[in-house]
């Protein structure tokens, strides 16, 4: 009986803790729809009198937010697709081909994955200038395709290492070559894992900050993260604008989260313990 009674305080404590995690989002949402006058009169904690959307609209137009969204979607989407392809090719050679020295190859990818971007950022900046790719979205796509593929290779190699050999042997006997086995058997069978990887690559790339900050300086090429981060860094925004910026930054993340919730929480666990 005492045990049953103890459940409720634990539940309530957990709910309060969860609420604390979500409260910042709520305050932002509430304040983004207040007019500046209302904000300065009532402060951040009051409920809004009505729906004031001009702040959001102004901000949207001022930073050309549609353009930033397009850039972010374009960069993250390309990276997600290309990095999965690159990971599959690498992992096919390591996990199924069991090439010689695969332990070392795999160790290389793990290390590449751990490498801090600070150790790459200046040469990447310098080389992309030399190659005429500086301040292009393509440069960011290339760099992140490789960076994300380091993790993808590591994860997929261990997944494909457990791929049922009989299926592959059977396909070979039926006359399929390695290329056909990869695209007609391995990829379709591993589709769930590839889907998880793609979602992760998309969101990780969306959230990236340092390299895009360095590589994308013109307004037309910036991603959502960089544009908002730079604006905040300049300390030029008033409270209403900051809230508009925060809300518009939160919304896409919230959409991804709701759409991919299951994939995300399950995928994390798969990724952490192979």
């Amino acid at each position, binding site marked *: 009986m005492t045990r049953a009674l103890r459940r409720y305080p*634990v*539940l309530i404590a*957990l709910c309060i803790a*969860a609420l604390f*995690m*979500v409260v*910042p989002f709520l*305050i*932002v949402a509430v304040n983004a729809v207040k007019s500046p006058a209302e904000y300065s009169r009532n402060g*951040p*904690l009051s409920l809004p009198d009505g729906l004031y959307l001009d702040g959001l609209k102004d901000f949207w137009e001022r930073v050309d937010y549609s353009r930033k969204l397009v850039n972010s979607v374009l960069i993250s989407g390309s990276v997600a697709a290309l990095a999965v392809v690159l990971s599959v*090719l690498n992992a096919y*050679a390591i996990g*199924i*081909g*069991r*090439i*010689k020295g695969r332990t070392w190859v795999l160790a*290389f990818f793990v*290390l590449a994955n*751990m*490498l*801090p*971007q*600070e*150790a*790459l950022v*200046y*040469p990447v900046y*310098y080389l992309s200038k030399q190659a005429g790719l500086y301040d292009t979205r393509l440069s960011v796509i*290339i*760099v992140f395709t*490789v960076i994300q*593929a*380091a993790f993808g290779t590591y994860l997929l190699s261990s997944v494909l290492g457990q791929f049922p050999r009989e299926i592959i042997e059977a396909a070979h006997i039926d006359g399929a*070559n*390695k*290329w056909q086995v990869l695209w007609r058997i391995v990829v379709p069978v591993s589709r769930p894992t590839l889907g998880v990887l793609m979602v992760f690559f998309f969101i990780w790339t969306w959230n990236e*900050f340092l390299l895009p900050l360095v590589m994308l300086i013109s307004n037309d090429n910036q991603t*959502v*993260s960089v544009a*908002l*981060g730079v604006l*905040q*860094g300049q300390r030029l925004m008033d409270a209403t604008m*900051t809230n508009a*910026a*925060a809300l518009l*930054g*939160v919304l896409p*993340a*919230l959409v991804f*989260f709701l759409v991919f*919730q299951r994939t*995300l*929480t399950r995928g*994390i*666990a798969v990724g*952490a*313990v192979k």
Partner: protein
Amino acid sequence: MTVTVERDARVVGKGPGPRPPRRPSSSYALFLLPGALAFLAVIVVPFLMNTGVSFTEWQGVGSPEWSGLANYRELMDDSEFWESFRHSLFMVVAMAVIPTALGLVLAAALFDYVGKHFGSGLAAVLRACFYLPQVLPIAVAGIVWSWILAPDNGSLNALLKAVGLGSWQQDWLGDPDLALYSVMGVMVWVQLGFPLVVFMAGLQRVDPQLYEAAELDGAGWWRRFRHITLPQIRPETYVVLTWCSIAALKVFGAVYVLTKGGPGGATNVPSYFSFTTFFEKTQVGYGAAISTVLTVIILALSLVGLKLQTRAEDAEEGVRP
């Protein structure tokens, strides 16, 4: 290329006489080619360049001048450098130690109490709340919090005033004595979801009979947590600690958006320090030396983490054949 090689091999194989031994690895290596080239161009070459530049004096234009270990010697005497790494340790506490400890307790409570007695749906909703900040771009999290922690009209100060604790109001991010702790608080909020989700998944793999046996023996929640939960999900704990520590050493976006390393360097971290040295002071050689030291520390930490994880996994397999 692959196709022809493969076809020829099969023709030979089908013919009379002894089958040639299968050598699967030879042409599989071709699949690694695009990856190898891409990694060479984007990771290996830049990394070697960065390491090379760290032994030179270079402003980013003209040709670098060899200076041997001068940059590293200078680093040893640079108090800003030591400060930034000291702040990294604080970040490790905020992003690895506290989230792991809190995550363990929260995951066990969610799993034991909520999951078992109130349904897994509620547990999933609560887990989602904790995980939400992880999906947020760090730049956006920074905007949200710098506004909440703002000195005038910030929500936290307004809240303190509203509950009659007006004297507790602070310039959370502007006070040199407080800024680091404020950033730490934000990072705990950002990071907590990751350990929680990993631990909750790990708990599902623990044999429920262990708990039942312990319960029959009269072990309370805390003892079951210490003697069953903790040892059973030790591999996850090492993974989480390693990953979060590395993330803590790399932390950049949050510092850039929240404080820009300030006030007066109070929240400077190695990654931000190298960024400003590269791009604001354009002392590329010195910046490269900072990032090389950071890289060495991170790689060493990864190796230790990997070793601990494998050992824990092996030990576990020994227990459960």
